[in-house]
């Protein structure tokens, strides 16, 4: 079985997270999940904090926790730029739990809109990390 593949790169400020071929990639976009298959139409889209899944050539699915960013696909190449990208096994669950508690605590207090947004973003990151850490891809 020879399926068509596309190039996928997932890049975070800490370095290149993944650089290789893919059969599909599912990412969290502003209005729900979005899937790119090989030879997807040229597109630029916004990614939010959430879980990103991609299927490598051996048909295995992989999952990663990603921060917000952008994805661009053109000429069967998909480049995803995210704030952070972590494999489930690399996620520090204790840290994420502590961050979750801190964020919920802060959101309960009456704070400025700006601080509220910061806590909200921290909460989203912590929740994503915890969700992905406990997860087997499919």
């Amino acid at each position, binding site marked *: 079985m020879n399926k068509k593949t596309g190039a996928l790169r997932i890049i975070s*400020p800490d370095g290149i997270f993944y650089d290789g071929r893919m059969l599909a990639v599912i990412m969290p976009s502003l209005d729900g999940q979005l899937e790119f298959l090989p030879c997807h139409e040229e597109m630029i889209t916004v990614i939010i904090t959430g879980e990103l899944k991609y299927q490598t050539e051996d048909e295995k699915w992989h999952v990663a926790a990603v921060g917000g960013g952008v994805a661009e696909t053109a000429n069967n190449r998909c480049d995803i730029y995210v704030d952070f990208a972590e494999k489930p096994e690399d996620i520090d669950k204790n840290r994420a739990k502590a961050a979750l508690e801190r964020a919920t605590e802060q959101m309960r207090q009456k704070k400025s809109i700006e601080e509220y947004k910061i806590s909200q973003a921290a909460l989203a990151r912590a929740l994503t990390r915890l969700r992905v850490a406990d997860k087997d891809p499919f």
Partner: protein
Amino acid sequence: MAGSADIKNRIKGIQDTRKITNAMYLISSTKLRRAKKSMEDIEPYFYGLQSLMQRMMRHFPDMTHPYLRGDEERPESETTHGFLVVTADKGLAGSYNANVLKETGRLMKGKSSRLYVVGEAGRRFFEQRKISIEENFTYTVQNPTRARARVITNTFLKDFEEEKIHDLTVVFTAMKNSLETETRVMKLMPLEKEMPLKDIPSDVPREEFIIHPSPKEVLSAIIPPYVAGLVYSALVESYCCEQNSRMQAMRAANDSADEIVQELKVRYNRKRQAGITQEITEVSAGARSGNLHN
């Protein structure tokens, strides 16, 4: 022999100081290496975002966004200029701080400005001169991280949105080559819209992009990390330069310490020998006079 004890004391003092300067030299060189490494890690991400920005600009030349330079010019009298000044937390780094502060002073002259100062040395400088700087902006320059660059960026992006500042210039230090550093001035906000178009021939079929959900949303997602990336690179560049300047200053200090110690040792030995000679003369003179009496 009071003199020789003094000299001995001084030698010891200088040697102790040299130990400190030498340690600072070594610390600086490790810090420099680490900062360079983290800079290399971020490069693919940063250049990727940059090319994505350029692509967006190319496809949507007439896009408007609060962060992009608009068409209307604001009269100078109504403009508040923001300056992000990157200095070190401490001195002992040659003219590193002085150069940045001098350049900032030159740029600020006769303008209404708002200062965002990173680094203790810069803050002290402006406080002494009673120049008001942005409060609650107390970030250290030690070990620049992306998180800190992002917080710094958010601070002035917010002020920019609220029109507390109308543009932002970064004054920092960059490596000219591996030995020399130079002060650089980078206009950061608002982002320039025009990108050179001429390097793409017009008959080349260009891809048509779907922008999801809207160009504005995409720009809002790209610009903050892009600007934070620029700030981060300025912080890291400056940090590398600071360490480099400190290494050079400390090496110079080490060298002159060696020189002084060398000179003092010669003087000490001379004094010691003079003392010994004197004693021998005295002893032998005494012995001779004793002989005469016998």
